C-alpha cells in the first residue's frame, strides 16, 4: 500500500492508501525544530494501525530545504561563475564566496573565450582558505556546452564534498536562474542528506521495508530519495503541490477549472486546463530569486481566514497581514474568521470576542460591527475573484512565438472553481455569488494533501538541443552529449529525447504505463551561412506531466 506524508507549515499529515481506499490516516502538529520527529511520529501512527509490512511505497514532502534557504541556515557555498559578454554576472551575486571567472560560450554553444585556469585555481584556493566544503559551478550557455562547468568540477576535485553543476538541473536557458538553483542546491545539500539518512534509519527502525522512498517536487511529481540526494533543491516548495495533487486524486477534474486553497494566511490559486494542472516551465522563485526548479503554476494572495481586517474611510480591507489567530481564539486583531463568526456563517471560539473586535474596528468610522463584517467578507471574496480573473488573464496572455500559436492558441476558460481549506465551506455561498463559474467544495479535505503526496507519480523533463551545423547534440539534465550527423532530423530528435527520458524513468523504477511521455516543444530552424543552408538547429522538450496513479485514484475519489 502507498503511504504519503506531507510535512506542512502547521500540520503533518499522513495517509495509507490501499486498492480499496484509505486504510489509515494521521494528522499532528509539525515540530518545526525537528522535522524528522514529525515524520517519525506520522509513520508510527500509520504503522500502529496497519503494521510495518503494509507500506510498500513511501512518498514524502518536506519543508526542510525551503526553510533552510528562507531562514538562511544553509551552508555557505563557493560559487564559481563564468559569464562572458552580456549582463554583468555581479548582478547575480549570491553569498560571500562568489568568483567571476573569465571565459565565454555563445548562444550556439561555441567556446568564444577559454576559462582562465589561473583565476579558477585562485578561486578554489580562496574557497579552501574560507573552509568551504560545498561548491557550485555555473557558466553562461552551459546547457549548450557543459565542458566549462565540467572543467570547473574537475578543478574542485579534492577541495569539495559536493559540487552542483548548473546544466544538470534543466536544459532551459537562464543564467541567473541557473546560478540561484545551483547555489541553493549546494547550500542545502548537507542538511538535506542528513535528513535523508535519518529518514532511512527511522524507516528501518520501524521495521518498514518499502520498495521505494520518493520525495515530492514543486511540480507535483516525485523523485526517488536516492536521486534527490544530489538534487535537493528540487524538493523545495512541494507543499502547495501536494495540495493540488490531492485535489486531482479525490476529484474527477476533466474541464478547465480553478482550485482555491483558502488557508489561514493565504489563498493559493491553481489553474487546470482540461483537467491537468498548469506547470510553470521556467521555474519557481525561492526567497525572491527565480530558479530553474519546475513547479505547478500557482499564485498566492494574502487573504486567508486569519488575515487581519483594517477599516478606514475609504474601505474595509482583509489582509495581507496576519497578526495572530482570530479574536474568537484570543488573537489581537479582528480577522476574516471573526467576521464570519459574528455573521453566524461559522461558530468558532468566543463569538463575543469577535464582536468586540469588529465593533472597535468600525467605531472610528461610524460603522456597525455587522456592517464591518459584511464589508470584510465581500472585500475578501471580491479580492479572491479579481485575483483569479487576473491569473487566468495572465495565463491566456502569455507570449507566443509562432503565427500558429497566436491564431490557434487555446484559451483557458474555467467552468468550475474547486474550493478547499479551512474557511472553504463557510465562504462557498458567497464565492458562488461572486463567481459565474460553478463553485464546488469537495466533501473532505482533512488529508487531501497527504493523499496527493501518496499518489503522485514521478515527473521528469528533458530538453534536447541539436546543432547539425556544429554536429553536436546535448540533453543537459541527463548529462548527455554526443556527435550528430548532418542529416539528423527533428523526428529523430523527438524520438531520441523521448526514449532517453523513458530509459531514465525505468532506471528510477517507474512504471512506464503510469508515466506517459509527451512532447511539449519541437522546433527546427534552418541555419544559413551566406546563401547556403548549413544545417538545422533543433530543439525538443519532452516531459512526464504531473499526475496521480490511476490504479489508486478510484479508491480515493469522492463525489465533488
Amino acid at each position, binding site marked *: 500500500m502507498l503511504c504519503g506524508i506531507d510535512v506542512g507549515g502547521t500540520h503533518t499529515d499522513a495517509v495509507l492508501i490501499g486498492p480499496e481506499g484509505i486504510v489509515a490516516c494521521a494528522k499532528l502538529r509539525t515540530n518545526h525544530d525537528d522535522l524528522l520527529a514529525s515524520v517519525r511520529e506520522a509513520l508510527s501512527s500509520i504503522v500502529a494501525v496497519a503494521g510495518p509490512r503494509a507500506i510498500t511505497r513511501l512518498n514524502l514532502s518536506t519543508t526542510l530545504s525551503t526553510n533552510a534557504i528562507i531562514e538562511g541556515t544553509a551552508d555557505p557555498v563557493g560559487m564559481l561563475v563564468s559569464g562572458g559578454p552580456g549582463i554583468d554576472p555581479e548582478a547575480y551575486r549570491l553569498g560571500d564566496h562568489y568568483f567571476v571567472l573569465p571565459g565565454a560560450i555563445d548562444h550556439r554553444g561555441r567556446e568564444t573565450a577559454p576559462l582562465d585556469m589561473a583565476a579558477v585555481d585562485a578561486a578554489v584556493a580562496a574557497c579552501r582558505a574560507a573552509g568551504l566544503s560545498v561548491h557550485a559551478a555555473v557558466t553562461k550557455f552551459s546547457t549548450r556546452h557543459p565542458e566549462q562547468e565540467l572543467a570547473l568540477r574537475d578543478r574542485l576535485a579534492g577541495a569539495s564534498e559536493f559540487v552542483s553543476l548548473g546544466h544538470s538541473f534543466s536544459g532551459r*536557458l537562464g543564467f*541567473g536562474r541557473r546560478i540561484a538553483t545551483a547555489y541553493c542546491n549546494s547550500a542545502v545539500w548537507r542538511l538535506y542528506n542528513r535528513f535523508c539518512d535519518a529518514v532511512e534509519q527511522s524507516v528501518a527502525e520501524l521495521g518498514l521495508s518499502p520498495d521505494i522512498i520518493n520525495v515530492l517536487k514543486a511540480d507535483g511529481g516525485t523523485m526517488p530519495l536516492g536521486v534527490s540526494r544530489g538534487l535537493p533543491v528540487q524538493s523545495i516548495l512541494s507543499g502547495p503541490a501536494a495540495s493540488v495533487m490531492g485535489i486531482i486524486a479525490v476529484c474527477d477534474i476533466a474541464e478547465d477549472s480553478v482550485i482555491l486553497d483558502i488557508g489561514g494566511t493565504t489563498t493559493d490559486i491553481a489553474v487546470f486546463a482540461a483537467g491537468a494542472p498548469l506547470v510553470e516551465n521556467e521555474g519557481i522563485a525561492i526567497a525572491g530569486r527565480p530558479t530553474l526548479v519546475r513547479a505547478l503554476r500557482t499564485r498566492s494572495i494574502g487573504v486567508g481566514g486569519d488575515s487581519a481586517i483594517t477599516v478606514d474611510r475609504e474601505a474595509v480591507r482583509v489582509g495581507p497581514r496576519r497578526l495572530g489567530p482570530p479574536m474568537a481564539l484570543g488573537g489581537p486583531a479582528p480577522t476574516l474568521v471573526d467576521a464570519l463568526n459574528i455573521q453566524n456563517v461559522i461558530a468558532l471560539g468566543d463569538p463575543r470576542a469577535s464582536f468586540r473586535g469588529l465593533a472597535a474596528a468600525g467605531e472610528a468610522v461610524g460603522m456597525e460591527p455587522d456592517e464591518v463584517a459584511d464589508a470584510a467578507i465581500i472585500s475578501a471574496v471580491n479580492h479572491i475573484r479579481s485575483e483569479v480573473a487576473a491569473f487566468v488573464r495572465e495565463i491566456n496572455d502569455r507570449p507566443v*512565438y509562432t503565427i*500558429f500559436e497566436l491564431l490557434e492558441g487555446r484559451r483557458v476558460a474555467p467552468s468550475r472553481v474547486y474550493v478547499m481549506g479551512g474557511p472553504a465551506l463557510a465562504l462557498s455561498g458567497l464565492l458562488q455569488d461572486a463567481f459565474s463559474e460553478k463553485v464546488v467544495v469537495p466533501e473532505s479535505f482533512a488529508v487531501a494533501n497527504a493523499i496527493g503526496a501518496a499518489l503522485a507519480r514521478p515527473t521528469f523533463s528533458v530538453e534536447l538541443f541539436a546543432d547539425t551545423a556544429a554536429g553536436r547534440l546535448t540533453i543537459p539534465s541527463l548529462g548527455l552529449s554526443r556527435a550528430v550527423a548532418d542529416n539528423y532530423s527533428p523526428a529523430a530528435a523527438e524520438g531520441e529525447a523521448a526514449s532517453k527520458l523513458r530509459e531514465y524513468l525505468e532506471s528510477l523504477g517507474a512504471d512506464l504505463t503510469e508515466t506517459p511521455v509527451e512532447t511539449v516543444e519541437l522546433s527546427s530552424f534552418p541555419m544559413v551561412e551566406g546563401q547556403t543552408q548549413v544545417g538545422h538547429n533543433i530543439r525538443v522538450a519532452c516531459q512526464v506531466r504531473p499526475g496521480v496513479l490511476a490504479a489508486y485514484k478510484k479508491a480515493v475519489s469522492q463525489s465533488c
Partner: protein
Amino acid sequence: MLKAKNTLGIVFFPAFDWAISPTHPERQERLLYTQDQLREEGVFDIPGITELKPDLATAADVARTHFCFPDVASVTTTSHMISAGGAMRAARTVLDKEAKKAFALVRPPGHHAMKVVHGARGFCNINIEAVMVEWLRETYGPLRVAIVDTDCHHGDGTQDVYWNDPDTLFISLHQDGRTLYPGTGYPYEMGGPGALGKTVNIPLPPGTSDEGFLFAVREVVLPLLAEFKPDLVINSAGQDNHFSDPITDMAFSAQGYARLTELLGADIAVLEGGYAIQGALPYVNLGLVLSMAGLDYSHVREPNFDPEAIRQPAKVTAYIEEVCRDILALTRNPKPPKGETAHGWFSRRKTLYYDTDAITEYQTESVRLCDHCRGVVKYETESTRNPLCLGVEAPIGACEKCVEEAYRIYEAGQIKGEYRHLQLIDRVGKHYASYTG
C-alpha cells in the same frame, strides 16, 4: 539584484513559422539567437521588464494608413498583421502607462513600405511604425510624433508616408544612398510643401563607426528633437549598421547601439532590419533592451570585439562633421521639394521598384495647397501588377473644404471610370471606403 530603472514592455514575436524563403536574410533564424540570448541573460526575469503578447492588426488598421492595391489581403500575410499588431501592442503599453517604454522585437520589418502598396519592397509590405502611429492617433487623439530611423537603409517608406505631415518629424540616419539600397535619403529630401523641414536625412559614409553615429545623434538629431517637442519619440531600430552585417558596410557596435538608444531616449522602439543574426543581433538587442530599461550595458559586447579594428578613418570623421553641419544649416533654411504647382495643387512623380516582388510602379502624388489645413492628398498609381488606381486622403485636421474635395475626387473617379481600384481615407470622419471599377 537587477531592477529596471525604466519599466519596459517587450513584445517578442519571432514568427518562427514564417519566412520569405528558407535562405532569405529575413528568415526565422533572425530572432532565434536573440531569443536565446535574452532568455539566457534572464531579461524577462528582471523586475520592471515584461514580455507581452502581440495584438493582431486588422485590415482596417492597415487601410487607415496605406492605400493597398488591390486590397489589404492581397499584399499582406498574417505575419505582417502580427508584426504591425506587435508594434501596436508596444505603443499601447506606453500610452496606457503600463510601462514607461516598449520595444517591439518583431518581424517582418516595415520601413520601406510607402503610402501606396502594390507589394513587397526591401522585405517590407506594410509600414508597421506608420500603422502603429495612425492607430495611436485614431485611439488616443492627435499626437506630435518623432520617428528616428536608425536602420542602415534609408527609411524611404516612412518618409513617403509622412512626407506631407507637419506633425510627424521623420529623421533617418543611414548608409549613403549612393552605396546602398534603396538609393534615396539625401539631405535635400525635406518634406512636402506643407511639411517642409519635417523630413530630415542624414546619409553617412560606409565605414562609419560608433563615433560617427553618436556625433550625428548629438549634433543633429537631439537638437531637432528638442525644437520639435514631440509627444512621443519612436525609434525604427534597424540593426544592420553593425560591423558584421552581411548586406551593409558600416562599423557600428553593440555598445554604440546601446549608447545611441540611451541618448535618443525613445519611448517606443520597433525592430527593423539587421541580418547579422549570430554575431550581432543577440548582442545589439540585449544592449538595446538594457539601455531602454536604464540598466548597465557596459558588459555587452560581441565576442572578440576589437574597437580599434573597426574605428572609422579620420577622413570619414571629417566628412561626417561636414555633412552634419550642412544638414543643420539646411533644416534652418529648407529648400522646397521638386515638383510642379498647378491650380492650387503641388504634384510630384515617382517611379518605384519593389525589389522583393519585382514590381515597377508609376505614381503621381498631389497635395492641395490649402491655407487652413495640411490639404487633401491624391495618389494616381499604376504598376506592373495593377492598372491605374486612385487613393485619396483627407488627413487628420483636414478643413471642411478639403474633406469635401476628397469625396468629390473619389466620386468623380468612380464616374469617370478610368481607375481600376479606388480608395478613400477620411481621417476626419473616420470613414474608409474602397471601390473597384
